[in-house]
């Protein structure tokens, strides 16, 4: 009953986070053509690179579910293994994103260049910030699986972490579509 409320409350929190992203998305859509003489998304983004990022994150969502499955089956070693795989995928994703950012900044296209780039860095960067929080949370969760018996309370805590991770994946699908996809086509 208690963890039931907690999961419900966490869903409500996720919705508030979604609204934060909604604001960033609308800011991006309003500003995406305001390049102020600078480069547009079409000139900057490399689709194969972003597709690799996307596949990494989608894989991590799958492995995260596998980890959760083994948590429910009370198989600690397998659960930790799959969360570790998820963690590595997430970390590689974050690394690729930081690489993309640093390349842009090196090329003189930082967030100060135009309103379009400001909104791009903020939207994608906020997602990356959430991913970092998710990674910290995931390492705590792995410790928790290792240290604590898997009572319903502990499972609920790990479940909420997994929810957060899936949520970030869904947000990324929209970023992929709106930021990179629309930038490529339109």
């Amino acid at each position, binding site marked *: 009953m208690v963890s*039931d409320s907690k999961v*419900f*409350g966490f869903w409500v929190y996720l919705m508030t986070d979604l*609204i934060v992203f909604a604001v960033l998305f609308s800011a991006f859509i309003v500003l995406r053509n305001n390049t*102020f003489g600078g480069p547009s998304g079409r000139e900057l983004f490399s689709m194969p690179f972003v597709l690799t990022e996307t596949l990494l994150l989608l894989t991590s969502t799958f492995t995260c579910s596998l980890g959760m499955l083994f948590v429910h089956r009370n198989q600690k070693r397998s659960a930790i293994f799959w969360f570790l795989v998820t963690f590595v995928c997430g970390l590689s994703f974050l690394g690729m994103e930081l690489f993309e950012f640093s390349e842009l900044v090196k090329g003189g296209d930082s*967030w100060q260049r135009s309103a379009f780039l400001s909104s791009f*860095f903020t939207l994608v960067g906020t997602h990356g910030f959430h991913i970092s929080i998710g990674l910290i949370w995931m390492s705590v969760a792995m410790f928790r699986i290792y240290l604590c018996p898997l009572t319903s*309370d502990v499972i609920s805590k790990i479940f909420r972490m997994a929810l957060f991770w899936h949520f970030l994946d869904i947000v990324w699908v929209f970023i992929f579509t709106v930021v990179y996809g629309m930038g490529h086509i339109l």
Partner: protein
Amino acid sequence: MKKNFFTGKLTFESLPDHWYTIGGTVFIILVGLIVAFILTKKKRWKWLWKKWLTSTDPKRIGTMYMIFAGLMFFRGMLDAGMIWLQQSLAADSQGYLSSDHFQQIFTSHGDIMVFFVTMGFFFGLMNWIIPLQIGARDLAFPFLNSLGLWLTVSGGVLLNLFFVIGGQFANTGWLAITPLSELEFNPGVRVDYLIWSLQLSGLGSLLAGINFLVTIIKKRAPGMTLMKMPLFVWTSLCAMVLIISAFPVLTATTLLLWLDRVLEMHFFTAGFGGNQMMYINLIWMWGHPEVYILVLPAFGMFSEIVATFSKNQISGYVSMVWAAIMITVLSYLVWLHHFFTMGAGANVNSFFGIVTMFIAIPSGVQVFNWILTMFKGRVQFQSPMYWFVGFLILFMFGGMAGVFMASPPADFQVHNSLFLVAHFHTMIVGVALFGIFAGTTYWFPKIMGFRLDEKLGKRAFWLWFVGYFVSFIPLYILGFMGATRRLDHYASSTHWQPLFIISTIGFVIIACGCFTQVMQLIISYKKRKEFSDQTGDPWDGRTLEWMTTSPPPFYNFAVIPNVSTREAFWEMKQKKLPPSKSYQEFELPKNTGMGIYISVFAFFAGFALVWHIPWLALLGALGALTCVIIRSFDKHTEYMLTAEEIERVESSRGQG
């Protein structure tokens, strides 16, 4: 401004050097010393920490919210008085304040009154009353409740810290309107103070919002379906839905503004493709729902009060619920009426104008239901009813001014004038503040165990009510005469000065009302034996909060009541059902200092982000994160209260 790695933008020049910042600093230190002295002398430090600051009991948290809001109210009223004094002096002269100082005052007045006073009082009353009204022992997340309180407090402290460090608050108006709040025009840290105090308190409000929503959905007593909830719970639920959906917008928008300021991004700048009107749109997408966050709980309180004192159930309960829901939905669709002058075109303006007028329909439903409740009942005019009738008059008055302004052509004439200022003060004073006064008077015996002095309460009402008209009617007239808001001086040939002076007299009357309320508190406390409430039900109430003693035991209800009708307690009294004595053990949350630790770290992070001190910001964030992780490993957050203990407590309270 040069930045140092260790101190950021902080220099010795940031120390107070004006009369008001030195005065403010000395005042803060003096009050702190006096409080510390009293606590040490009475050996109350441990009591304060154990019983109050670390408490997870919603009743104690509610009281702390209200004390905090009361302190901030004093601060906000001082600002108001300074604004009025300046405007009544400044014909053909600069008055006694510089333009910049005057701008800081109206900015902090707005932020304090909205974020800390009104929301603080509402969260305080909700913490007290909602668990009692839904027959629960606690909120869904007691620790989150404590954290929400302390984040709000740390936001309030950060806001007032500018007196001591920095010496200047934002001069941008309470919403930090761009491009004035951008780095180009506001290079110092004053706008950052505004941004980070709102971020902290906004996060606190958001946590409280989630908490109350889950509590109302999940923790109602058995038998209490949604359509059997008291109306205060309903309107609070609506306000919480608004908080949950609107406050993230505030967080995101002020974050974008801060990014513009610190990383030199271009969301709202004049150059580089930024869009200033996007800020105005975003901030009002939060701002308009916020207006209803401030008034909806008051509607609910008045519904409770009018039913109790009319000795009649509320007329048209179902229509009242749907009216509240209608208001909730419509409040998302009207944000553009705050800036019809943007130039969005006739079609857009018509849409927003018409939707704004629609809000009059559910509001009217509520007004007629309140009047019908009185009409069909036997009204007892005790002081909460005075506030209620005053509210009805002001609400209709201000509401009509609002419908008038909902028409874009009319709005173009009075946009940004004192007419607007008078309108929204009618709503916030007449609805939110009168609601707070009515609700506090009504529930005071439940909270403290004794009633407030009726005579002084009525006197305070008349001072507020008359003072309100004397101070705000001139502002309506001034608005029509062309006086814009936020004027620090004007030409005497406008003939505005007499009206400004009358308005200031009105403020003096209101201030006398506040003074009477303080006296009312002191005198009632002195006569607490005479006014004490032994029954737990001093007004012959109808809802569950009157079922327990005044004040309630720390677990609210020894046995959770079963609910079968809308007015559960009224039914129990009619059928003379005695409360059940079959006690069963239950769990209660332990006290924890974690909420305070996290908020202190968050406060330092906020302070560091204001002054651009990266290492301190990182330290604050890491500290808060570490506390959260430590807390998540704590398995012993609750304790069990056995049936024998409950019986012992109940019999020691004369309830056994």
